[in-house]
C-alpha cells in the first residue's frame, strides 16, 4: 500500500512537472519551443507602415523564422488605416491577418466587435502571466484588458517627456537673471505657469537663435497634450451620470487660452509644425524645451544616427546637452502606444499567439526597444534597469529613469466606443484654435460634437464604458 501511495505521488509530481514547464521557463524560449510544431506555416501580422515595420521585416521576423521555421508576412498599413483594415478583415471573415498591432484606445471597439482573440487561455497555457508583471503598471493595468479579459500585450512605452537644453538651464548668467526676475531657480518647469515664464524668458534672451520652446501643433498630435493638461488642471471629459460632455468648462477654456498664448514665445509658424518640424528644431538647437515621445531623446543623443533608415532625422547639434524631465504638473500623457493582439478570424491563432509572446517577452522586447529605427520605446521594468541599455549613451540612465517615472505616472488616452470620432472632434477643435477662432465657441462646438457622438453610440452603452475607463488609476489624476 505504501509503495502504491509512493508511486501515485511520484506520478502526480511527474505529471505536475511536465504540465507546468512554462511557468519556470523564459517566456521567449517557451514560445519558440512550442512554435516549432508549426514550422513551415506562414503567419501574417499587421504592422504600422514605415519605420516601425523595419523591426518585423529586418529583425524579429527573420529571427523567428530561423528559430521556429514559421515565416512572418508583414502587412504594412498606415496608422490611420489600421483600424479599418482590421475591422474589414474581421467583418469579411477572410482571416487574412493572424497577429495584429492595436492602438490601446481601439481595444473597446475591437474587443466588443469580436475582432480580437481573448488571450488568457494562451497566457496560462504558455506560462506568460508571470512575465507580464514585468510590464510597467501604466501599460499593464490599463492597456491590456477589456471587460476583464486580456486582448493584447502592451508593446510600446509611448509616453510624453519634457526635453530641455541643460546647457541653457545650467548657464550661470541665465540662472542668475532668471532668479532675479522670477524669484525661483531656472529648472525644468513643474507647472504650466513656470513653463510659460521660462519659455518667454529664454525667447526674450536668445531669440531668434533659440526660442523658449517648440511643440508639434498639427493634427493629430496636440490633442494628446490637450487631454493631459485638461485633466491635470482638474477637467473632466464627461459628467459620469449623464454622459454630457464637459470639455467646454472653465478648465477647458483656461487650457485652450494657455496653449494659444504659448505660441507667442515659440518660433514663428509653430502652428504648422508636425512631428518632424518640431524634432528638427529641437535637434538643431533652435528650441530650448519641447515635449514629445521617447525617440526624440534617443535621436537628440545621436543614438542611431548612422542608421540608413534614420537618414531623414537631422544630425543632432545638441547631443550631450539634453536633459529629460516629467511634463509640467508631473503626469504625462501615455499617448497612443501599441498592443500586440491575435485576430479572432486567424486560422493560425496559436502560432500567432506564440509569435507575439516571443516578441513581447522580456528577452526579445529588450532587444527590440534598443533598435534605433523602430520607434518602440521601453515599457518593462527590466528595460529601464537594463545595464546594456543604460550604457548606450552617457545620459541614457537619466533618460530611462525619466521614462520609468513617466510610465508610472502616465495618464491614459481617452478610450471609449468609437473613440476615433471623439479624437477627430478634439483634433479639429485644436486646429481651429490655431486659426484664431474664439476658444469658447470652439469648446462649445466640441462639446456638442461629443454629445452627438455619445448619443449615436448610445448613452447607456457609452456610460458603462466610460465608467470603467474613468475608474482606472491612469484615467484621472487622483
Amino acid at each position, binding site marked *: 500500500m505504501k509503495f502504491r501511495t509512493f508511486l501515485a505521488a511520484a506520478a502526480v509530481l511527474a505529471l505536475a512537472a511536465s504540465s507546468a514547464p512554462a511557468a519556470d521557463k523564459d517566456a521567449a524560449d517557451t514560445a519558440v519551443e512550442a512554435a516549432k510544431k508549426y514550422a513551415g506555416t506562414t503567419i501574417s501580422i499587421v504592422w504600422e507602415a514605415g519605420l516601425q515595420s523595419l523591426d518585423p521585416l529586418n529583425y524579429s521576423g527573420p529571427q523567428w523564422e530561423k528559430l521556429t521555421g514559421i515565416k512572418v508576412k508583414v502587412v504594412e498599413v498606415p496608422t490611420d488605416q489600421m483600424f479599418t483594415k482590421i475591422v474589414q478583415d474581421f467583418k469579411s471573415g477572410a482571416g487574412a491577418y493572424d497577429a495584429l498591432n492595436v492602438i490601446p484606445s481601439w481595444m473597446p471597439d475591437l474587443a466588443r*466587435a469580436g475582432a480580437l482573440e481573448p488571450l488568457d487561455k494562451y497566457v496560462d497555457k504558455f506560462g506568460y502571466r508571470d512575465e507580464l508583471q514585468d510590464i510597467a503598471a501604466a501599460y499593464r493595468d490599463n492597456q491590456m484588458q477589456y471587460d476583464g479579459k486580456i486582448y493584447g500585450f502592451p508593446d510600446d512605452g509611448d509616453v510624453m517627456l519634457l526635453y530641455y537644453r541643460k546647457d541653457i538651464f545650467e548657464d550661470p548668467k541665465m540662472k542668475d537673471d532668471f532668479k532675479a526676475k522670477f524669484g525661483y531657480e531656472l529648472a525644468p518647469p513643474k507647472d504650466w505657469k513656470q513653463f510659460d515664464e521660462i519659455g518667454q524668458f529664454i525667447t526674450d534672451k536668445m531669440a531668434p537663435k533659440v526660442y523658449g520652446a517648440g511643440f508639434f501643433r498639427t493634427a493629430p498630435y496636440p490633442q494628446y497634450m490637450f487631454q493631459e493638461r485638461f485633466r491635470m488642471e482638474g477637467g473632466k471629459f464627461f459628467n459620469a451620470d449623464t454622459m454630457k460632455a464637459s470639455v467646454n468648462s472653465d478648465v477647458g477654456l483656461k487650457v485652450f487660452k494657455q496653449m494659444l498664448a504659448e505660441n507667442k514665445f515659440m518660433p514663428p509658424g509653430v502652428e504648422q509644425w508636425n512631428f518632424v518640424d518640431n524634432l528638427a528644431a529641437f535637434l538643431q538647437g533652435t528650441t530650448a524645451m519641447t515635449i514629445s515621445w521617447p525617440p526624440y531623446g534617443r535621436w537628440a543623443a545621436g543614438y542611431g544616427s548612422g542608421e540608413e533608415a534614420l537618414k531623414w532625422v537631422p544630425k543632432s547639434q545638441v547631443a550631450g546637452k539634453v536633459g529629460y524631465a516629467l511634463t509640467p504638473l508631473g503626469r504625462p500623457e501615455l499617448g497612443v502606444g501599441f498592443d500586440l493582439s491575435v485576430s479572432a478570424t486567424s486560422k493560425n491563432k496559436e502560432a500567432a499567439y506564440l509569435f507575439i509572446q516571443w516578441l513581447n517577452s522580456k528577452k526579445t522586447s529588450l532587444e527590440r526597444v534598443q533598435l534605433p529605427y523602430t520607434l518602440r520605446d521601453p515599457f518593462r521594468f527590466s528595460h529601464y534597469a537594463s545595464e546594456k541599455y543604460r550604457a548606450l549613451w552617457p545620459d541614457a540612465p537619466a533618460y530611462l529613469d525619466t521614462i520609468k517615472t513617466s510610465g508610472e505616472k502616465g495618464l491614459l488616452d481617452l478610450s471609449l466606443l*468609437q473613440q476615433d470620432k471623439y479624437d477627430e472632434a478634439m483634433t479639429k477643435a485644436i*486646429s*481651429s484654435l490655431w486659426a484664431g477662432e474664439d476658444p469658447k465657441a470652439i469648446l462649445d462646438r466640441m462639446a456638442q460634437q461629443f454629445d452627438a457622438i455619445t448619443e449615436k453610440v448610445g448613452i447607456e452603452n457609452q456610460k458603462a464604458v466610460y465608467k470603467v475607463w474613468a475608474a482606472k488609476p491612469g484615467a484621472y489624476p487622483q
Partner: protein
Amino acid sequence: MTASVNLNAAEHRPSRFGRMLEDRLPYLIVAPAILILLLVGLFPLIYSLVVSFQRITMTESDTSFAGLLNYAELFRDTRLWASLGHTAIITAISLPLELLVGFLMAQLFIDRMPGRQIFVALLVLPTVISPIVAGATWRLMFDVRFGPIGQILSFFAGEPVRILWTVNPAYVYPAIIICEVWQWSPFMFLLLLAALSNVDQSQLEAAEIDGASYLRVLRAIVLPAIAPVIAVACLIRGLDLVRIFDIIWALTEGGPGSTTETISLYTYVQGFSQFETSYTAAISFLVIALLTLITTLVLKRMELAR
C-alpha cells in the same frame, strides 16, 4: 442585271429563324460586353444604393434596414452642407481662373515661334504631376520658415512677411486656389490652344482687312468658334473640381477646423475615419444626384446634349 440579282436573292432567301438571327446578331455580339459592363459598373452602384438604406457601420454588427433614415440625416448634417459650400466656393473661383489663365497662355502660344514645342511641353508639366505631390510641393512653398513665397514677399516688403497660409482662415482658400490653378490651367491651355489653332483663318484675315478691333474679333469670331471646346473643358474641370481631394488633403487636410473640408474630404472622413458605411453611401448618392442635375442643366444650357 438587276433582275438576275433579285432572282438570286429570292432563291437564297433565308428561313424565318435565319432572318431573326440576322436581325439580332449585332445585339448578340455586344451582349456579353454589355453584361460585363453592367456587372462591373452597375452592380457596385446598386449595391451601394442598398447599403445606403441600411444601418451598416464598421464597428457594429447591425445591418438592418433603415429606410430613409440616412437620407433624412443628410438634411440635419450641417458639416455636410458646409462642405458642399466649400466645394462650391473653390469650384466657382478656380474654374474661371483656370479658363482665363489657360486662354491667355494659349493666346501667347498661338503664333508659331522658335522653341514653341519645348515651352508648351514645359508648361504642361504641372498637369502630369500627381495632385498629392503638387499639394505637398505647394505646402513647402508656402512654409513660413523655408518657403520661397514668404521670402519673395519679404524681399518686396522690406521686412519679414510671415503668412500662415495653411492655418490662417484668410489665406487657406487663396493657397488652395493658387495650387489648383497652377496645376490645371495648363490643361485648359492645351485644349484652347488646339481650338484656337482651328479657328477659320480666312474669317480672321477678313476681319483684319475690315479693321475690326481685337475685342470685336474675339467676341464675334474666336469665342463662338471655340465655344464647344470651352464648354467641354469647363465641364471636365468642373466635375474634377467638385471631386477635389488630394491637393486639399496635402495642403490643409480640410482645416483649419473644417474650414476647407470639401465634399470629397467629408465623404472620406465619414467612410474611412468615422466608419459610417451606410451614411457615406447616402452622401455619395446625394453628390451623384447633385452632379447629375448640374451636368444636365449645364449641357442643356450649352446645347451640347443634342
